[in-house]
């Protein structure tokens, strides 16, 4: 028995030693970034662009593995159980902070099971309506909504999606109710908005900027504090008459809990470098988004931001009585 305990102790000592050596030559092999959504989506795109730039600094390949399903919670659960050796990292969006309110049976703790690395970007959303909707700006739109209670259809990309969150916030800000029409993803929702089957939605500019620019849908406002370079003619919510309405689809990078601090610091440094990259900035701008400032691409900033967002969305989701499971 004593021998066995001794053996276990020795082994774990060896492991501790190994992990220190690890941190020094880290990274010595390919790093896997888990994206909890299908390839080709906005989160996947953000993760791949960031991975490409980080590869240069870390001098190793960062490959994206898509583990989709159940609003990102399957991928997150996989990361929570992954070996904390720095070779598995995780990129998720705002949904990481809304999961505890949306899922009653979550297999992981969004704060406790992860080590924050840093924020990546703030993505804007825009309130858009079908082309022939009888309102030219946000004020007319709000008046029309109030005059036609119960007749307005609001599309979203499914329970827990960014468009669902923005829609809920819009509903509670106007203190009115829409008929919510959920879709499986942004593509089909946008398809029906273009076809005039539904009235409006609030979605990421990643998904609708090109339709707005082509004049296929009306845009009333963007949800960021400043106007977007990609959509200079679209006012912000506060310019258009709804102050205090800001939503950002932020993306961030995490590692499994227990990843050694030196490794986290190295990854965080590489992330900050990546966000300075001109190509990355350009691509983000094309998507109507921009990288966060250097001081926010840090573990401390992400830890604080995640907490704030969990506290912000919890009550809104609870009030709407929505669950994803």
């Amino acid at each position, binding site marked *: 028995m004593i021998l066995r305990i001794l053996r276990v102790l020795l082994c774990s000592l060896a492991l501790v030693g190994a992990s220190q050596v690890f941190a020094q030559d880290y990274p010595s092999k390919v790093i896997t970034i888990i994206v909890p959504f*299908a*390839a*080709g*989506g906005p989160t*996947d*795109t953000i993760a*791949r*662009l960031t991975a*490409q730039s980080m590869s240069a600094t870390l001098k190793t390949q960062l*490959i*994206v*593995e*898509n*583990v*989709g*399903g*159940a609003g990102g*919670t*399957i991928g997150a*659960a996989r990361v929570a159980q992954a070996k904390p050796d720095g070779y598995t990292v995780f990129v998720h969006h705002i949904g990481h902070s809304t999961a505890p309110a*949306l899922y009653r*049976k979550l*297999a992981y703790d969004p704060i406790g099971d992860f080590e924050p690395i840093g924020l990546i970007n703030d993505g804007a959303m825009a309130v858009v309506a079908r082309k022939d909707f009888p309102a030219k700006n946000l004020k007319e739109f709000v008046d029309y909504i109030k005059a036609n209670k119960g007749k307005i*259809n609001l599309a979203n990309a*499914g*329970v*827990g999606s960014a468009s669902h969150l923005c829609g809920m916030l819009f509903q509670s800000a106007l203190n009115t109710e829409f*008929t919510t*029409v*959920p*879709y*499986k993803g942004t*593509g*089909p929702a*946008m*398809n*029906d908005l*273009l*076809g*005039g*089957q*539904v009235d409006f939605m609030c979605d990421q500019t*990643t998904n609708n*900027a*090109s*339709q707005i*620019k*082509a004049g*296929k849908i009306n845009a009333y406002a963007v949800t960021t504090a400043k106007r977007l370079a990609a959509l200079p003619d679209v006012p912000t919510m506060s310019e258009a008459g709804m102050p205090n309405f800001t939503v950002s689809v932020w993306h961030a990078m995490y590692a499994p809990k227990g990843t050694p601090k030196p490794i986290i610091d190295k990854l965080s440094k590489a992330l900050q470098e990546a966000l300075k990259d001109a190509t990355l900035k*350009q*691509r983000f701008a*094309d*998507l109507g988004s921009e990288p966060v400032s250097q001081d926010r691409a840090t573990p401390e900033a992400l830890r604080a931001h995640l907490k704030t967002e969990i506290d912000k969305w919890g009550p809104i989701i609870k009030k709407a009585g*929505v*669950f*994803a*499971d």
Partner: protein
Amino acid sequence: MNLLYCLAGVFLGTLIGVLPGLGPTATIAMLLPITFTLQPVSSLIMLAGIYYGSQYGGSTTSILVNVPGEAASVVTALDGYQMARKGRAGVALTTAAVGSFFAGTVATVVLALFAPPLAEIALKFGPAEFFSLMVLGLLASLVLARGSLLHATGMVVLGLLMGLVGSDVNTGTQRFTFDLPQLADGIGFVVVAMGMFGLAEIVRNLENEDDRSLLVSKITNLMPSKEDWKRMIAPVLRGTAIGSVLGILPGSGSILGSFAAYAIEKKVSKNSAEFGQGAIEGVAAPESANNAGAQTSFIPMLTLGIPSNPVMALMIGAMIIQGIQPGPSVITEQPALFWGIIVSMWIGNLFLVILNLPMVGMWVKLVSVPYQYLFPAILVFCGIGVFSLNNAEFDVYLMALFGVIGYIFVKLDCEPAPMLLAFILGPMMEEYLRRALLLSRGNPMVFLERPISATMLALAAIAIIVASLPMFYKKREETFRDD
């Protein structure tokens, strides 16, 4: 130079199409990083080639060993595999190749000439229209069966029930998931198809101890005879038309197209008694439809920037990373890209025929490989393929389970094809029905007030009436019970 990428794309596509389960989505996702270093046009040409190449290659294993390489080739397995067992694998493969090439050519021309107006028409399809289309499709699924109508109806109902598994779209409530997060998004189509078709067939073959060979008669000629050519012309034309139209609609366009083409062919063909036992029409029609649909499904993506399936979503992702904003302006702002892809499609289809026709002889020999060597290989490839869908072991276990279920159904003489179609259509029908009723505030008249929807429901009603009229009774008897 782009020709080379096109060739590489269709070659890879054929390869992954042939490997069961390893579909275009997984492959394109894996190859995405490689394309970042290429010119945008080259990379998209290559990715497009992978997609339609795989639609094409998927038929090979369906025909040879009854393992659908990907979803759209499930129907091809029905008659293609029977043809192979009769030693006509070469004929079936050549038919698939020629039919696909013809369909690809026509669909590419359609795409080049009418893409923007077609996209506008597709937008007219609201939830009510889709629901009525699905109703029509579900009726057609009964035609897929060659055995008893009662068994087929039972399988359709089972398929609908299986389609209910997963999260409710409107509320997110979990249905029949047994608290397994892996089931939250429903059961994967490929998982079911490979289990029920591929694995079940393997078990059935292993059961016959002395005769495990796949062949029931000797391999005859590789090329279709004059009679064969004559029989395939009309089905190819009809399949192309059906596939092109359904491919434009978002959702499972190309899968639906091949099912619909087969069902219609079985109804109109004068050889309908042969269906399910190796009718050449049963290969020609769905293969043409599936390739035509693969080409026309590019229309919403290229003209509106809307992905009609997961592969198109990946292509959009690739465009964004290359700095191209997918959307309505691609045609005017990136004409080189738009026309480059279209031209490459036709060339790619030509490459596919040149690449595949010489290989027919080699594939046919594969069937004569002793089964004890063949089946472990099929099993391994099925496992790898299914795993690659979501990188999840769970899917492999699930496939094994469906293999067992499929074997039980073989014993009970219940065919999986109607179940699979219902399994695809069920969740879509539910989604569109509920959405249409949400938008109409619960008024069911919406299905009759909208002209396209009303027409389709009328067609469905006529189909039921015709089928149940006594004077047609004998004929129906023939269609459903021919063995």
